[in-house]
């Protein structure tokens, strides 16, 4: 038995506790901030190294049998997600050294960041339906404080919408978990999976209704239409470091939960996937329309999150296909898409923050001239922006290719048409930022005071690293493809996974 699956929770929780203890000492908090997120990244790397071969690591917490107590479990998918959470955490922790103002840091930016990451990572490694709810709560609380910290007017308005709608999601999740326990008499996901498969034979409609409830509560988290309102309302209000980590991770927890629940926990039933496909198609298009309509960098980027969630969920939806090859392609595509998107999306927000630093505004009407004054930033913007739009040979191209290929193989013409149209509109709105912030001459003759070298370095270093990741995945996608394929194989083997997670492999 390995303690490894507990690390993704223990590291950020300890970092949060230590940071709370060092409440008055900013330097210590910053050091813990970087070390803690780095530790989470290391935990992710270690997990991936152990699980990349297809193993499922299970840790029954407290030594109670996994079926009765709480089990933490990490398979390849969990490991990828933890690794990405660590990478984004580290990037943002470094970026925040320069970007987050002193008062916010003095009032707990770092500990709440750790807390949020603990919730995120906990959701990835738990194998217990109620325990996942707890991690959702930890994540929600951490993110709410981060969102509201500073108390600016629009921040509070956004935070209220965020917390209200997410609490409705939590309530649904809790109710669903309660009913699930009433039906299956267990919370261990593996045991739930085994038992639901039995029940679905006699009570298919009950299982479907229960599935719909989970689907709804996770869709709220993922920001799927029509549950997405909280996202554009809130993501454009806090400091950009906060938006960036939210953009990368929070919705992806919802997508992860959908992915986990509807592959290995719930029996594969067509209705759930039809719903996912429908909502995904609408989400892709409506999200990108929002992005096309906006003129503020963070709002454009926020709407893009929604649109891109559509692609990931579409890939999950496509895994209903009877053809095993398409199923594998679709699920691997979903995992690949998530990995690509987390890196790219966080990075775009981080670039947005630098744009504001250099031009004084997020409003594209007031930006400009950066192609000349900051050509290095132009390159660092183009990489994630074109990747988001699916331009080859960057990571987003392969992600989109997989989804489109799975869609066309499955004969989902409408969905693919939506995906292609959304792809073009994504390009339009990325070019909008490019035109207005980089190519257009700077509007005001009086230049905005340029930040110091150290500040720029701390803000640029994470951007450069993430851009490098995007380029590497783009030029050399096979390794990620292999890992995503491994994850897909595990997701396509619910019985094997359930056995491992329920502790039957002792």
């Amino acid at each position, binding site marked *: 038995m390995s303690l490894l699956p507990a690390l993704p929770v223990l590291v950020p929780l300890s970092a949060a506790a230590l940071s*709370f203890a060092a*409440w008055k000492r900013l330097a210590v908090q910053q050091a813990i901030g970087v070390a803690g997120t780095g530790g989470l990244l290391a935990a992710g790397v270690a997990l991936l190294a152990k699980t990349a071969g297809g193993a499922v690591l299970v840790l029954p*917490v*407290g030594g109670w049998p996994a079926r*009765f*107590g709480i089990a933490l479990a990490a398979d390849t998918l969990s490991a990828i997600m933890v690794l990405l959470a660590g990478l984004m955490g580290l990037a943002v922790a470094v970026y925040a050294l320069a970007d987050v103002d002193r*008062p*916010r840091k003095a*009032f*707990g930016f770092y500990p709440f960041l750790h*807390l949020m990451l*603990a919730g995120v990572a906990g959701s990835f490694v738990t194998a217990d339906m109620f*325990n996942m709810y707890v991690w959702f*709560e930890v994540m929600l*609380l*951490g993110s*709410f*404080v981060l969102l509201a910290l*500073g*108390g*600016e007017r629009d921040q509070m308005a956004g935070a209220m*919408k965020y917390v*209200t709608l997410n609490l*409705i999601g939590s309530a649904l999740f809790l*109710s669903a978990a309660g009913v699930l326990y*009433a*039906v*299956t*008499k267990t919370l261990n996901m593996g045991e739930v999976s085994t038992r639901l498969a039995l*029940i679905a034979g006699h*009570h298919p*409609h009950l299982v479907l*209704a*229960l599935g*719909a409830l989970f689907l*709804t509560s996770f869709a709220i988290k993922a920001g799927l239409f*029509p*549950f997405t*309102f909280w996202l*554009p*309302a809130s993501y454009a209000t806090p400091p950009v470091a906060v938006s960036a980590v939210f953009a990368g991770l929070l919705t992806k927890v919802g997508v992860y939960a959908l992915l986990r629940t509807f592959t290995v926990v719930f029996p594969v039933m067509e209705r759930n996937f039809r719903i996912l496909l429908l909502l995904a198609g609408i989400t892709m298009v*409506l999200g990108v*329309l*929002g992005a096309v*309509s906006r003129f503020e960098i963070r709002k454009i980027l926020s709407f893009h999150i929604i649109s891109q969630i559509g692609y990931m969920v579409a890939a999950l939806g496509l895994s209903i296909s009877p053809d095993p090859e398409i199923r594998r392609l679709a699920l691997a595509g979903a995992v690949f898409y998530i990995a690509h998107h987390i890196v790219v999306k966080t990075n775009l927000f981080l670039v947005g923050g630098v744009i504001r630093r250099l031009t004084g505004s997020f409003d594209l009407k007031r930006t400009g001239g950066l192609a000349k004054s900051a050509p290095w930033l132009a390159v660092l913007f183009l990489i994630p922006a*074109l990747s988001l739009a699916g331009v*080859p040979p960057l990571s987003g*191209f392969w992600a989109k290719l997989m989804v*489109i*290929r799975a869609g*066309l193989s499955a004969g989902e013409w409408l969905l693919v048409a939506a995906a*292609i149209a959304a792809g*073009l509109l994504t390009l*339009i709105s990325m*070019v909008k930022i490019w035109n207005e912030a980089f*190519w*257009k001459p700077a509007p005001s003759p009086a230049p905005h005071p340029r930040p110091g070298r150290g500040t720029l370095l701390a803000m640029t270093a994470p951007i450069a690293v993430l851009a490098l990741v995007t380029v590497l995945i783009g030029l050399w*996608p*096979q390794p990620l493809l*292999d890992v995503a394929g491994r994850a897909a194989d595990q997701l396509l083997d619910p019985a094997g996974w359930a056995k491992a997670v329920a502790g039957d492999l002792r």
Partner: protein
Amino acid sequence: MLWTILLLFGLAAAAPLVAKFAKGASGWLLAAGPAAILFAYLAQLPILPGESRSEVWEWVPGLGVELRFVLDGLSATFTLLITGIGALVLVYAGGYMAGKAKLGQLLSYLLLFLGSMLGLVLSDNTIALFVFWELTSISSYLLIGLDHERESVRSAALKALLVTGGGGLLLLGGFVLLGIAAGDLGLKGADAFSISALADLDLSAHGLYPAIMVLVAIGAFTKSAQAPFHFWLPQAMAAPTPVSALLHSATMVKAGIFLLARLHPALGGTDLWTALLVPVGAVTMLGAAITALGQRDKKRILAYSTVSVLGILVTLLGAGTVVAIEAAVVLLVAHAFYKAALFMVAGNVDHGAGTRDVTLLSGLRKAMPFTFAAGAVAALSMAGAPPMFGFVGKELFYGKLVTAEARSTLLILVAVATNVALVAAALLVALRPFVGSSAGVAKNAHEVSAPMLVGPLILAAAGLFVGLFPDVFDATLGSAMATAIAGQRVDMHLALWHGLNPTALGVMGLSAATLVLGAMVYHRTRRLLAPLAEALSRLRAIGPETWYEKGLAGLVTGSDRVTRGIQTGYLRHYVLAVVVAAVVLAAPPLLRSLPGAAPLFPEAPRPHEALLVAVAAASAVAAMVLRSRTAAIAALGATGAVIAMLFLLFSAPDLSITQIMVETLSVILLVLVLSRLPRLVTRSSRSRRIADLAVATLAGGTMALLAIAATTVSLDPEAARFFAAASYTEAQGRNVVNVVLVDFRALDTMGEIFVVAAAGFGIHALLRLAPETGGAA
């Protein structure tokens, strides 16, 4: 072959640095790269019909993508054009932009573009080809937008990107479908995406063929500026001249032609192929040729004439016969030479005389003799006059039309009219500026520097050379290229003189008539220009460019309207939508499960049970209706207390105790917090409240149904039995709830402890760090 592509990309990365240090010489320096590659590929000549050399690099085996490069007649011709013209364009750019700050950028983008184009024509794997295809779109976007400080330049670049990028996405769809179809026909892995493997399949019988054909054709049409997607190309004139030369002559816009030629063996030879390509090509060639005559800007004239020639090429490929393919091969090569030369000439004139307006230019022959010479020779080729390569091409084109089995008079008329207009256009750009009075702009004109003369002179000479000795071309490359396109062996025997036979005489008659008519039209251009421009601007108002602009504007306003409709800003709308959606998703299967479900009350409830439920329900309703906050809280507490009693009744004392504790605490806390707030008032209208009530009832009803439905399943409560059994014996606790909380499920509790502790810190932070206290920046 990979090294040639990588070398160009490497040079692209190095170009800004080179430009910084080498300054004026950087064009020459960087041109050495493509020149070296040119010679490397020249060393591969001759390539015989049917011969192909390939090279394979693994890339993404998981998706069937490999870098399989194929050098056959088709790709070799393109390779030579790209690197040869590319080298000259780099030299030219070095002179054209000498001393300008953006020289490094320009050279870098040009090299990026050259590398992408090289990759495109060499790739045999469709997905890899697409990667390079998109890279050419991106690099041409950057090239067109070089002077991005101007709004018109930005919108022209965007137009090019969106039209070609949109077409590119459809093309990708087409390629994926092609791979799926190939997979159905037995090809596995990377073979399903290998163009050379496709030729042996009977794709036209596959159900996906029409979709593939349409998507691929649109992709090619957008890239090669076929109507109605042609409008981005003349707009791309905003780009500096070296860019125009590259975009138009060898490369970017020929990518679509290349693709059609490359896929002809696999997809061609069907009615659909011809029906898609010939009409589009014919409309494009005539429309663009006439439009060319309505322009004043030399570069625009050249741009439209390019579109016209592309139309001719599409028509010829659409016809797909051996003669048509031979004509396409010759025209393509001839056009690459003369059009690149003429664009550089236009740039020289602009540079030397300060304008490109053909109505202002005249008499430059003395001031710019070398430019004049290059332009005149190139224009002869464009006009299709002997002894130029363009003449050979036009002869073949006419020959194809005259000898076609289904000879179409309409098509012959269209072709002649097109060529007449092209002759006039050629004279307009290459003769008009140099002849006549040298009183106007010519007074201050000067010849340009050597780097800007090398390109046009060499290219014009090349056109002349190949025209004089066409058999050198068909022996080394031409026949192989035609063979690669036709998918069957073709032996070309090109000649300037076809002897005395009826067909040859007829064709020659057409050629002569074309030249004479063209000269006549040219002489009337001064008078024709104004009415033609007027008519064109009226056409433009209903043309595709206007659709594009209206579409783009409508997209912004439309998407704004849609987004406002969804993102209203009111939390109550959001909550309503979320709850309704949840009910819509969850209720239908529940309703269907009802008929088979167990009866609602398996045994009649006992009176005290019914009473407790009634009290709980009444308290819940009271909590909603009461206006005093304290009373409402008390009612809420009553509901909780009753539920605790229900737990007790059903023999769960531990749970009951916990519930009472929680309820009591919440009531006390809520009273302390809320009692200081004002009384509740009703703000919403009656109808809204009724609607809210309906939604709430539906949501509550759904949850209740679900809870009831859950009781119909009875599985072994294994975990509960374990808790009950192990609680005292193993965990040493009498209260099972407590043991569950602190031991069996301690991790949950730890998480919640963090939540509560962090909530404390959070409240502290939020209260203290309010903007009034000067906290946030």
